[in-house]
């Protein structure tokens, strides 16, 4: 684990009041710039001297990045909206309660007061080998220290590993993918790009040094929740070592529409098992049109873990994920846990 040594090294601090000004600074410094949202992940990196940017661009003074707004029957959440503001917004609770649950599960009240939804989805992985500053794949090197015979890898990936076995730590990410959210990205070269939340996250097979599709200079400005899944039947569950404040070992989020007991449509996503939140498309296809019952849930859960490759210390994640998927499909009350 990295050690906080002393005060952080010097850098130029910019506090722009518009997206344009922020991007002007980001474009000027390129890869030497660092985007600061709530600062909760950033300050670790800076004080540990693992990341040494020349310029830090604090987005806190950009008003247009904050707040929750109605848009096209859904909601648009500014990227700098704090997790507490998301949790307390009445429309989120009424129509998108899965996001409320996910945001409320993140960290502690103090952190949620400071942490933003944009920062929560864009934060870096918690792999301690990577965060210690060692030259692993994710840091531009040629080894994964977490995937060695004697590595401590209890929290690492069981699916989708490609050299790197780090996992995505975001709590809100799986909920946003389940809601089919759209991420609004202002590109470094100008222009805006809307990408689905699912495509916002990238795995190591595509880019081993990044967790999201953001290029240097890009800014996530807002997250749009479409009306499609508003008021659906939601399920979110986060399993962690300490209930009061911890990252997810595995989490699951699902949005479901049913007719009677038949599943019409569903989106189901797990996180904490791969470098990006995994949408379980095969599971969704399997359960659509089937009754929402124990049998369907068991078949779906077994399908969900197909291909899992546990490391030395994280085999427990396989039954954990299986049970979470089962609970998300069947519901908590009638589900039994199996090892």
């Amino acid at each position: 684990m990295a050690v906080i040594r002393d005060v952080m090294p010097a850098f130029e601090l910019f506090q722009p009041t518009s997206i344009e000004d922020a991007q002007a600074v980001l474009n000027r410094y390129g890869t030497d710039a660092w985007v600061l949202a709530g600062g909760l992940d950033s300050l670790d990196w800076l004080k540990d001297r693992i990341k040494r940017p020349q310029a830090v661009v604090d987005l806190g003074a950009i008003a247009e990045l904050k707040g929750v707004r109605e848009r096209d029957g859904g909601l648009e959440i500014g990227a700098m909206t704090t997790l507490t503001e998301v949790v307390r917004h009445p429309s989120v609770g009424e129509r998108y309660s899965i996001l409320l649950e996910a945001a409320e599960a993140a960290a502690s009240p103090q952190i949620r007061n400071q942490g933003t939804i944009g920062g929560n989805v864009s934060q870096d992985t918690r792999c301690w080998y990577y965060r210690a500053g060692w030259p692993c794949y994710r840091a531009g090197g040629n080894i994964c220290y977490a995937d060695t015979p004697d590595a401590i890898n209890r929290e690492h990936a069981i699916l989708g590993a490609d050299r790197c076995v780090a996992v995505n730590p975001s709590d809100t990410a799986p909920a946003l993918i389940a809601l089919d959210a759209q991420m609004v990205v202002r590109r470094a070269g100008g222009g805006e790009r809307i990408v689905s939340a699912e495509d916002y996250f990238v795995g190591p097979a595509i880019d081993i040094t990044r967790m999201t599709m953001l290029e240097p200079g890009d800014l996530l400005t807002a997250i749009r929740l479409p009306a499609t899944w508003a008021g659906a039947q939601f399920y979110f569950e986060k399993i962690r070592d300490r209930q009061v404040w911890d990252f997810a070992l595995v989490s699951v989020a699902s949005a479901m529409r049913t007719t009677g007991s038949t599943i019409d449509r569903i989106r189901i996503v797990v996180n904490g098992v791969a470098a990006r939140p995994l949408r379980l498309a095969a599971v969704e296809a399997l359960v659509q049109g089937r009754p929402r019952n124990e049998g369907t849930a068991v078949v779906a859960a077994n399908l969900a873990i197909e291909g899992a490759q546990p490391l030395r210390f994280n085999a427990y994640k396989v039954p954990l994920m299986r049970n979470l998927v089962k609970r998300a499909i069947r519901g908590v009350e009638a589900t039994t846990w199996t090892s």
Partner: protein
Amino acid sequence: MDFLTWGRNPWDQPILTHISWDLLWASFFAGIVFLVAHASYMVFSAHRKRHAAETDAMEAARADLPERIPRHSAAARLFHWVMASAMFTLLITAFLPIAGIRFPWVTWHWIAGLVLTGSIVFHIVHATFWLDFWSIWVGPRDLPELKAEVLRELGHEVPGPRPGKYPLGNRLYHLAIVVVALAVVASGLFMMVRIRTPFFTRNPYLFTDATWGVTYVLHGLAGVALVGLVIAHVYFAVRPDKWWITKSMILGWITRRQYLEHHDPDRWAISSSRHERT
């Protein structure tokens, strides 16, 4: 421009990680510069080609030779195109992600690497036991040919030796490819131990950090060298004046006229009974 990238291992020792990817662009542009320079020279120079009348006379004198001279056996051609496919797959999967075109490349890369390795092993066995092994190699005995070829390129009439089965440039290219391909294959096979494949139990600690660093650097240097070499190879393959050679790698034969025009029958003897080993 840095040539190598370094990191610090958990014991705070400096370790090599890989080459600087600036070298990729250096190799790419070197290949393009060579292409442009050679093409320009061929357009504006007075390089000497054998006169048609001279070839006509030779063809009349050697009418006993078959119309089609076998140059590459089916097995040799199969090897060449399998190796070429593997090589292109390796280069695309290795360097497009570095150039910014991102896709899941690792599995394709090591599969292509194994295909290349298999094809090279096949080629070594095939060339050793079924082909004229030494016809592709260069050595001191080729210095007179080198001198004659250079003088011809400079526009002189030179009676000196002409190539045997393979032109001198072809043999020099083969030598370069042998060195670079063996380096990339050998280092790549060891690097497979670091990733998940069905063949090895992952063991990133097979070598020391320093040895792994050298392995990655060797793989990277050989890889970027291949970029320039492949550009040069493709360039020569599509040049109109070399198309007869490329065509022979597809069809397996050259015409009697091409044989007499470009080769020295004393150094690449063809019997009229067409039992030539290729």
